[in-house]
Structure formats: C-alpha cells, structure tokens
C-alpha cells in the first residue's frame, strides 16, 4: 500500500490549523511574540513544507513526518507529576544549573536562579517577554529569518515558549547551564520550542542541551534558537540528541557573534528517527572564532542531516567545521557545509571537514561543501571522506588478542574521539564517551535515571 502525500495538502492542512489556533495563540502570548505571527505564517505558506526539490532540504524528506496526525500543544501543559522526579540526568560529577522544558514549555517549578550570578536570567521566554519586553524584543526574530526557511517561519507563527538566557556584561558563569528538553505527551504531538540566548560584552557561558523522548509516541519537534554573542563574549553550546526512532526533530540554531568573541558548538546525535540540524553562524566582528563540531551515530533507518552555514562578514576571523558520522545498517546521513566569505572579510581562515564511516553497503551518506568566497585574501579548505573501518588497524588490534567486535568498537570510538575531545566540560565528555560506548554496543544510551525505560 502506498499513500500519496501531497505537499500542498499538507501545507493547507497546517494553514487551516493555524487559523483555528490563532486566537488561542495570541490570547496567551506577550505582544512581541504575536507581532510577527501573521507574516511568519504567510512566509510559511509561500514556501510550503520543503520537498526534495527545495535546494536546502534536498537530502531530507520532511513530508512523511508532517503527514502524520498530531496534537498541537499550544497551551502550557497541566501536569500532575514533577518532571524532575521522573527524569534526572544522572551525570556523575556534572554539576550544572539545570532546567527542564516539557514539550517545548519551560517548566514553572525550575528554580535555577538560586546559584547564578546577579543579573543573570534563565527562565521561560514567555515570562521574559513580559518582564523584559525591550530586551527580548530587541533580539527576538533578529536572526531567524522567516523568509529563508519554512520551518523557522512555522516556528515563529506557532511559538509560545522556550527558554531565555541572559548573561549581563562581564559576567562569567562557571558552572554549565543544562537545559533538558523532554518530550512526553499522551498522544502523538507536534512541539514548538523557541529559545533565545543573549551574551552581553565579556560574558562567558557554557550551555548543554539534552533532547529526550520519554515515551513511544510520535513527535515532530520544531525548535528555533537565536544566540547573540556580543564582543569579547564566549559561548559553548553542546547538544546531545537522544530521542527515539519514531521522533522527527528539526532544530535551527542561529548565532551572531561580534568582535573578539568565541563560539563553540558541538552537536552529538546518538538517537533519533529523523533529525535535521540547521546551524547558521554569522561572524560579524573582527578577531572572532567559531568552532562548529558534530558527531552522529546512526543505525536502522535513521536519518540525520546537518546543514551548516558560516558567514564571514568581517575580516581577521577563523572558523572550523568538523562533522563526523558513523552509519550502520540502512541509515542515511547528510552534511551540507556552507562557507560564505563576504567581500570585505579579508584575512579569513575557514576550514571544513566531514568524515564518514560506513559500516554496511546499505548505509548512505551524502555530503556537499559549498564555498562562496568574495574576498581575495582568504585561506579556505574543505574535505570530505566516506570510508570503511581501517582493516590494517583492525588486524593490529586483533593480533593483540582483542576480540573483533571489541576492536571495531575501539576504532569507532577512536573515529569519534576527534570530535568528542572538543567537549571542554570534562565530566560531560566522560559521560558522552560512556553514552557512545553504550550506543555502539547496542544498549540504550539514555541516562540511567530515566523512569521510562522504553525499548526504542
């Protein structure tokens, strides 16, 4: 049996839904989130749900995910349990300021502000938009352009909540901030999450995002995060994706950084049915550096697509992109890495590398570098490899008495090591190594304390 999915129908179905929900969305939301809704929705309709013909989505088919029926969670969920009780991320020695979001909503009983330096805000975006309307309005939607991506448009049209982090001038937050995104609904659910991070001049913060599903319902998660990094500021942004194989997730992260700033992102995808990670970094100040890393493990019929854009708008900057994939069984992966060096951005070093390990004949990897260089004094390199396990290395390990299966694990871990060592929070790095080890052994790699031991 085959079901013909018509893209226009799906888009229209969402249009109908939007009209029904518009009043509800508007009534509960702060003004500044309502303002862009209508235009955002028009932008979504104009672009439609991407098809393989859409240049930026040609390796990822979102239509089957959109074709399912979902409940939309437009209102803050009423819950009769404490998320913190059914889910504790049990990372030994990982001392963090921890907050939980449930289905895209900031959980009210989080109380992270206690240990944070004065002036820092970490909380609900909806709440922040009411409390600090000028601050939020100044940045909300400033990077995530609704005309450029239909999913960003849809997110902006439906956005109700997410987290907001504000780090004032010259404030350093030593302990990492950990945001746990839980998906747990009674039925199949469409989830929208909208986040905003503002790091003022000289601010320093490390963020750890953990994406989890807590039951086996189908989820379609569409989140957008805007991160503004002012001069001399530094932001580390680690994402660990660990959702089940029936979930689909589109995460769009937009970063703009100013003079003398640093950003490091590291996206580690351990599990998920379909994951699309959009990442755009605009380096808009001199002497700045962006390091963008990703490590993905895939098996069964999973699909992960990393789509990155680095825009060099100012001279004397450096960017590094390193993405690696291990693909097993019938999984598929994609990497598109754009480097755009604008005309006046001289003395730029921009590096990009994508290495892939295919463990079966059926696994598929598509990789595409895109370089647009308008300046003339630029050092730019890119490279992609798709290969198998190094047989010489495998034999060396086996010749020392190490079981073939174990030897393969060691080599896969070694492959990932180049990316994982870039995680600068040591306990987190150890934990990730542990999760990878379990992931590669075929054990479920979720945190031990998860009360839902779902077999997915």
């Amino acid at each position: 049996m085959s079901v013909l999915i018509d893209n226009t129908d799906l888009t229209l179905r969402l249009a109908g839904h939007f009209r029904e929900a518009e009043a509800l969305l508007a009534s509960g939301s702060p003004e500044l989130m309502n303002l862009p809704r209508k235009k955002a929705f028009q932008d979504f309709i104009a672009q439609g749900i991407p098809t393989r013909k859409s240049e930026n989505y040609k390796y990822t088919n979102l239509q089957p995910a959109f074709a399912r029926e979902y409940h939309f969670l437009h209102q803050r969920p009423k819950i009769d349990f404490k998320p913190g009780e059914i889910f504790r991320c049990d990372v030994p020695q990982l001392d963090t300021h921890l907050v939980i979001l449930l289905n895209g909503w900031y959980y009210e009983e989080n109380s992270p502000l206690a240990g944070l330096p004065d002036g820092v805000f970490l909380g609900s975006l909806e709440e922040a938009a009411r409390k600090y309307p000028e601050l939020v309005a100044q940045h909300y939607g400033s990077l995530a352009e609704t005309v450029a991506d239909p999913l960003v448009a849809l997110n902006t049209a439906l956005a109700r909540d997410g987290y907001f982090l504000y780090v004032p001038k010259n404030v350093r937050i030593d302990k990492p901030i950990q945001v746990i995104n839980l998906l747990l609904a009674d039925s199949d659910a469409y989830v929208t999450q909208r986040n905003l991070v503002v790091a003022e001049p000289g601010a320093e913060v490390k963020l750890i995002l953990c994406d989890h599903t807590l039951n086996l319902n189908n989820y379609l998660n569409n989140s957008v995060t805007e991160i503004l990094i002012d001069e001399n500021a530094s932001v580390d942004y680690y994402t660990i994706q660990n959702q089940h194989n029936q979930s689909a997730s589109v995460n769009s992260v937009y970063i703009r950084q100013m003079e003398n700033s640093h950003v490091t992102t590291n996206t580690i995808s351990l599990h998920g049915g379909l994951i699309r990670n959009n990442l755009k970094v605009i380096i808009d100040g001199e002497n700045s550096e962006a390091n963008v890393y990703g490590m993905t493990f895939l098996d069964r019929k999973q699909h992960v697509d990393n789509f990155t854009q680095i825009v060099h708008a100012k001279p004397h900057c450096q960017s590094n992109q390193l993405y690696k994939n291990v693909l097993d069984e019938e999984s598929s992966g994609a990497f598109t890495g754009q480097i755009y060096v604008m005309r006046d951005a001289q003395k730029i070093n921009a590096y990009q590398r994508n290495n892939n390990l295919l463990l079966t004949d059926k696994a598929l990897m598509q990789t595409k570098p895109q370089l647009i260089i308008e300046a003339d004094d630029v050092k730019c390199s890119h490279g992609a490899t798709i290969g198998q396990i190094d047989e010489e290395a495998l034999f060396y390990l086996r010749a020392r008495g190490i079981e073939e299966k174990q030897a393969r694990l060691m080599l896969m871990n070694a492959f990932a090591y180049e990316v994982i060592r870039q995680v600068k929070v040591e306990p987190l790095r150890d934990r990730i190594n542990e999760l990878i080890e379990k992931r590669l052994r075929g054990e479920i790699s979720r945190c031990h304390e998860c009360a839902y031991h779902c077999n997915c």
Partner: protein
Amino acid sequence: MLSIKNLCVSIEGKEILNGINLEINPGEVHAIMGPNGSGKSTLANVLAGKEEYEITDGEIYYLGENLLELSPEDRARKGIFLSFQYPVEIPGVPMINFLKTAVNEHRKFKGEKPLTAGEFLKLMREKKQLVEMDTELTNRSVNEGFSGGEKKKNEIFQMALLQPRLAILDETDSGLDIDALKTVAHGVNALRSPENSTIVVTHYQRLLDYIVPDHVHVLYKGRIVKSAGKELAFELEEKGYDWIKKENED
C-alpha cells in the same frame, strides 16, 4: 611447536609463497633472511592470521592445532605474537586502553581475573623499564607520531606485556639505533625459555649477534631455498644474495 607443510599463499591471484616447509621446536630461535619481496612478511602475516591472503595449499599446525582455523585474536591469545614490520598508527585509541584491553583479553582466555588499574600500571612500569620505553609514549594514541625506532620498541614492549609462546619479529631491528638494538634484543632474550620459540626476520647479521639463532633460513621467491646454522648469516652478510639467486635459477 609450529609445523608448516607445503604452504602456498597467493594474493589477488598472484602466488607469493609456494611450498614453505618449516618445523620449529620449543625453545628454538629461527632466523629468516632473504631479499626484498621474497615473502618474509607474507609468511609472518599468514601466521598471525591476516585475512586478505588466500591459502591455496598446505597446512600449519601450532601446538597440535590447525592454526588456519583460528581467528587472529585466538592465535594471539594462544601465544602467537607478531612484531609488525610496519606498526600501524591508530589515532584516537589511547595506548593505555589498548594495552590494558589486550592484557586482560589474554588473562580472560586463560581463566584469570582481569588486572585492576593499579596492578596494570605496575606491570606496565616494569615492562617499560625492560625495553627502556619513554613514559610519554604510553600517554599517546597507539603508535601515533612515534618515530620508526619508537614503533619497533613499542612492539617489543607489547611482547613483554603479553608473554607469547611464539614470537615472530618482522624486521624489528630496522630503524633502531645501536643502543636501542641492544635493548630490544635484551627484551627478546628476557622472554626466552625452553618452552618459547622465536622467529626472527631480518636483513642484518648484526641482530643475530644478540639474538643467537639455532637455524637460519633463506627465503627466495616464496620458498625456503637454504637452511643452516648461524654461520649462514655471516656468509650472507659477506656475499649477499647473488650466489643464492644463481643457485636457484631455473
């Protein structure tokens, strides 16, 4: 201990070994010499279980067992150790993890308890001294950035940790300076016992001053064309291989 009969091996349809016969008894040291490309490393790799070779004929028995039926890891755990001519670099696999896993897999096979971290470090310290291995090297990934000589030393270091019954040293002397050569030879000799045997593949008689062979064989075009005592090594050193080649012209 090891009995090779009429071993014929080819790779990609090309015959490399054609009819090797070799008997090695416990406690013996056999040197294998021969011109470049004659098949010495091929023989060593086949003994260790490298899979890309096709065994077209013959048999190998090791401690009474059909060696060709064993996986490389089982051969290793049953006491075969190959010191590689070209040890491979494996970035991302830390030396310590690798060594500890290897040692404990050997122990598990023998029904022994795995070493604790402390016990393992102690063992490692002891063996490092034996081959004068630089501590900094064991903090790296396997062979990563090691110099040619350091790689060879590392092979003997692993051998000292794993205590094999049959060690096969494929040109372990090449690339070693004179002091390192003595140290490595010392490491090899420390392991010698009436039960253990060694196959030394080398181009130079010099190594055989330190690791004294009971038998010397010349491998040429995939066959052992001459076998004698250690005096053969001196003769080869002096005269080269031309006379051997002449003797074996069809």
